[in-house]
């Protein structure tokens, strides 16, 4: 019936499992090692300080200043976080504390669909809705002439994209708070909002911070949607209505043309290395933060 006997099948299955596990275990090191190896060419001739703080980006002259891209990325990411954190927090409280149980069952598919929409579709939506909105209404309202393709447009689109991600974690956090704690507080004669404000928020604070941290890491590396609406102008932005350029967009836009200049290729790999490092750093930080906090 079978080609192999039971023991042989066990050995085959076992080695298959172990082999797969090894692939996974080495993947982060391979990612880091591969990108570091490729960006070594650039790091040999430029100091790290030069690369990060220099303004001039002229690949043909061998000048690689990542400052405009880093600033662009940081602006877009922070703005997006500022927009989506309060929205997620209030919605999570509403859904878990105030709304009926049934409502959570509506909210889950909504979150799933928002999380499942591909980033290119978010980009299309940004071009269709957000960009005209900024150039026609928001810009003139603040007295600014703008095409709409700006840091703010990138931040808006990005903030919508990370809402499902942050909201999902926050809902889990609020649901994990024991009912006894809420009941004990309410029995002291507080109103529901006082209970939420003084007890729930304090209890959930580390989780909330962690969810924002994870969202930040996710937002920093988002490529296509931001690339499509942020304007892609290599200049340090001075206001949120200025067009900008982000690190992931830099990689995505220039990959086809770099092979002629080896240092350019290396520079883009360095940009990928920065993204990887930022993502790993924030995820590590938040994991240790949660692990430490859970002890108490």
């Amino acid at each position, binding site marked *: 019936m079978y080609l192999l006997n*039971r*023991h042989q*099948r*066990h050995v085959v*299955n076992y080695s*298959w*499992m*172990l082999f*797969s*596990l090894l*692939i*996974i*275990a080495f*993947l982060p090191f391979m*990612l880091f090692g*591969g990108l570091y190896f*490729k960006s070594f060419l650039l790091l040999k001739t430029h100091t790290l300080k030069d690369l990060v703080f220099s303004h001039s980006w002229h690949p043909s002259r061998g000048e690689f200043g990542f400052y405009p891209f880093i600033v662009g990325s940081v602006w877009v990411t922070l703005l997006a976080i500022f927009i989506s954190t*309060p*929205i997620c927090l209030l*919605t999570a*409280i509403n859904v878990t504390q*105030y*709304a009926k149980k049934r409502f959570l069952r509506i909210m889950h*598919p*909504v979150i799933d*669909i*928002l999380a*499942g*929409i*591909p*980033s*290119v*579709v*978010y980009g*299309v*939506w940004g071009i*269709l*809705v957000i960009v005209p909105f900024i150039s026609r209404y928001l810009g003139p309202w603040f007295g600014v002439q703008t095409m709409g393709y700006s840091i703010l447009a990138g931040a808006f689109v990005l903030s*919508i994209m990370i*809402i499902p991600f942050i909201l999902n974690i926050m809902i889990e956090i609020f649901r994990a708070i024991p009912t006894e704690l809420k009941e004990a507080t309410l029995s002291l004669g507080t*109103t529901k*909002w006082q209970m939420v404000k003084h007890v729930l928020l304090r209890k959930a604070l580390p989780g909330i911070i962690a969810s924002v941290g994870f969202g930040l*890491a996710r937002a920093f*590396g*988002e*490529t*296509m949607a931001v690339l*499509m609406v942020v304007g892609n102008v290599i200049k340090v932005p001075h206001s949120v209505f200025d067009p900008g350029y982000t690190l*992931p967009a830099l*990689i*995505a836009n220039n*990959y*086809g043309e770099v092979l002629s200049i080896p240092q350019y290729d290396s520079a883009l*790999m360095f940009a*990928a290395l920065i*993204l*990887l490092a930022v993502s*790993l750093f924030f*995820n590590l930080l938040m*994991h240790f933060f949660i692990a430490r906090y859970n002890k108490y």
Partner: protein
Amino acid sequence: MKRTLKAEETFFRVLMNLTTAFILIILGIIIYSVFEKGMKAMSWEMLTSVPSGGYYYGKGGGILNAIVGSLVLAFGATILAFLIGLPVALYMNVFLVRRKRLVNLIRFILDLIWGVPSIVYGAFGFTLMVLVGLQTSLLAGIITVTLFILPIMIRSMDEILRTVPMGLSEATYSLGSNKSELAFKIFTRQSVSGIITAVLLSFGRAIGDAASVLFTAGYTDNLPNSLMEPVATLPLSIFFQLASPVPEVQARAYASALVLTVIILIVSLFSRGLGKRYHKTKINF
């Protein structure tokens, strides 16, 4: 005092309802605007033909190359990720079940690489391609996307497998089975619904991601016919058509976005439906 308290609560409740409504409305606007713009340029020709000469200047043709390409790429990557992912998830929950620290370390690593942006996988995949002398091709795309969806697939399978009760393992051992039989015959059957959900979730990710296939899968106007040739994908076809200055081509980008969105919605619907259907095979304790 009491009145300000009341006012504060009312204020925040209104604010909460507003933000909740905001999220629902945004989803509505996204779906509406994609459908509204997409339906205008949608035609049978779009769905059933490959781009003819001059397609990118507004002449006839369709995006069949990208639809088929995306499906083939996503299927390939999902199957490959399943072949690597399921054993890892089973190994963690059957063989390492008593070594909590090691399992937690693996989970931690998986969470870390889950957070890595897809463009980094794209860059890494390209480095790998250059290293082994591979051109932009379907194969390179599949490998890169596999790496990208692996952590997602393993972690969601793992979340299901860890809920399998100890009693089931003990009962299986008592009948004389070994560990790999327990893993592949009992654990997989007990968790079928969860595994299907995990696979469909990864498939959705694989088909929607553009940044990882940008340098690895390339782009072509032909249908995919070999692993070694470039392949077109829907996200990239949307991206390239939008960059065109011709309004008709841009309109087709919206139609392509509609196709992609519909595929994603169908996958998400399936994962809900199938998940419920296979609950029957599960033994309840």
